[in-house]
């Protein structure tokens, strides 16, 4: 069976989309000759030409705004923002236009746009290179937000994001770019809006996305010998949220811990805790635990291990929830 890194799987997804749909365009800072700072667009310009795959000036608001105009002329833009921390200058165009365009045109103009953003921490990066920007997008009504956790699913999610009629913010866990997975790439498979269960267990549900999924699986491995079997849920899609999967997990295990890198306050775990309480209050045996980043700016490389959820911290949280 073929083996793919996440970077390679994403590259294949872009190539296949460019091949299949002549209206797709790939652009962003350094996506041309260089192939992007993570090589996700490697070789695409050579293969599809400088008209369909091109560098932009350093102008993130401009990049997001270009997407709006291009979508109006019937193109399908797939834009890259170089890093999480550089998505903020684009927020106004994303919030005020990209997310609202369909609604304000009474459904007449759709925005089939994908904005790819290498995101999250854990690579001993510089300042502004370890941000978890999902809350800014998830709270913005009108966007879809997805986060792959593995190479094969990254391919599927990206292909689905590209054909989606609505704008999709596609957050790539850069600490997992070089993780490998064996299997076939497919554009079928689980749609956006559906979570996947990666491990079964009835003691506690561990809910995560992106790079934290692997840590949750590790924590689950670690806990198993203690007789604590965790159900590990990879959310994949933060918007729409798979509330059924969360409800099932909460009803069946009675215990939920949510893990993410973003700071705690109004991180995804807050939403999941609130939702789980709404749909499964009577089944909950313990409060939903949040294992998250700290409510401080992302720290320098030498402290990031104290900021990010570790396998130990996840396991400890599960134990607390289970012992509650």
């Amino acid at each position, binding site marked *: 069976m073929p083996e793919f890194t996440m970077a390679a799987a994403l590259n294949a997804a872009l190539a296949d989309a460019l091949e299949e749909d002549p209206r797709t365009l790939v652009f962003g800072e350094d996506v041309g000759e260089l192939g992007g700072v993570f090589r996700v667009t490697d070789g695409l310009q050579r293969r599809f030409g400088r008209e369909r795959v091109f560098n932009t000036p350093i102008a993130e608001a401009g990049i997001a705004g*270009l997407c709006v105009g291009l979508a109006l002329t019937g193109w399908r833009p797939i834009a890259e923002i170089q890093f999480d921390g550089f998505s903020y200058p684009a927020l106004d165009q994303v919030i005020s236009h990209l997310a609202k*365009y369909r609604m304000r045109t009474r459904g*007449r103009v759709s925005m089939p746009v994908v904005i790819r953003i290498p995101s999250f921490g854990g690579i001993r990066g510089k300042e502004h290179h370890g941000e978890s920007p999902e809350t800014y997008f998830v709270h913005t009504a*009108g966007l879809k937000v997805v986060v792959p956790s593995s190479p094969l699913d990254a391919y599927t999610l990206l292909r689905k994001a590209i054909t*989606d009629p609505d704008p999709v913010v596609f957050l790539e866990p850069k600490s997992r770019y070089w993780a490998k997975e064996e299997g076939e790439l497919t554009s079928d498979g689980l749609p956006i809006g559906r979570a996947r269960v990666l491990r079964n267990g009835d003691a506690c549900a561990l809910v995560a996305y992106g790079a934290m999924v692997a840590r949750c699986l590790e924590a689950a491995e670690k806990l198993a010998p203690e007789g604590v079997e965790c159900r590990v849920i990879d959310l994949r899609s933060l918007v729409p949220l798979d509330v059924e999967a969360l409800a099932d997990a909460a009803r069946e295990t009675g215990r939920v811990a949510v893990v993410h890198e973003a700071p705690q306050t109004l991180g995804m775990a807050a939403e999941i805790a609130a939702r789980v309480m709404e749909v499964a209050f009577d089944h909950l045996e313990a409060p939903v635990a949040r294992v998250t980043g700290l409510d401080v700016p992302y720290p320098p490389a030498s402290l990031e291990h104290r900021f990010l959820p570790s396998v130990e911290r996840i396991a400890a949280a599960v134990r607390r929830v289970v012992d509650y």
Partner: protein
Amino acid sequence: MRDTGPSDDMVRHVAPDGTAVGDVDVGLDEGDLRELLRLMVRARRLDRECMALQRQGELTVYPPFEGQEAAQVGSAFALGPSDFVFPSFRELAAAIARGVDVVEYLQYHRGTWHGGAYDPIAARFAPICVPVATQIVHAVGWALGAKLDGIGACALAYFGDGATSEGDFHEAANMAAVFRVPVVLFCQNNGWAISVPLSEQTAVPIARRAGGYGFPGVRVDGNDVLAVYAVTRAAVERARAGEGPTLIEAITYRIGPHTTADDATRYRAPEEVERWRRLDPIERYRRFLLGAGIVGEEFVAACEAEAEAWVAEVRTAVTALGPPPEDEMVAFAFAEPPTTLTREWRERTDA
């Protein structure tokens, strides 16, 4: 200084008193020349009606354009059917000139729908855009798409003097230059950004910005409809020929308040307004047409009568506009509303 009237380094074909300045042949036939007047008269009449409708509680806050008719009509008239306009929020006159359904347009000010209740694609007129300068980037994106499609069409973005201070203006202008896309950046410099005068917005004339990006910047008397037409026409042709963007600074004036919520007497002198009233674009053009024998007084009267009748119809249609079906709020946010949203909505409507 600048409020003594347009200065001399501007393109001008018709002087404020209606006499021709040099060659006035801008390539329009007499029918077109009459149409320009007709459109400006309509536009002004509707603008005044909207002010009245707002006072009567039939519209929410309204941003009048009186004084800017020539700038808007002259520029919009220079566009072809496949060109695409990216307006800000004060371009009702341009919308009229482009044939946008004004009742649908006024849903915006009626508070019954947002940005584009009209069909923006069919009308070649993007949704009304309030966040200052953001639409300029969309115009560049559209122009890039049009260039890739090789359709020989161009985008025109309207924006104000104040908009040129925003980062989005810059990113758009620079990308337009680098990508060499068919776009016209049309600035209506009406002297004010709400209460902030031009001198607190920029240290130099706006047209000069263009040199910093590497494309032409042109100043034009924005109250001279023929000059505006000619300058825009040239920019459009340049764009369509693949020669890239042009920045046009049309010097004009906002006779009314910023919006109906504004009290302009707090920040500007009545004499300034009076000076500009004497530079009225419609009156100037009327005199020109009469002087050139292109129209007679009866044509002017007919225009006014026709505008009156049309506005009465618009008024009836606009005041009949009720709120949209409530579930449209949910129906149009996504192509297919997520189940979380439909559930939220159901709970709310059940409650």
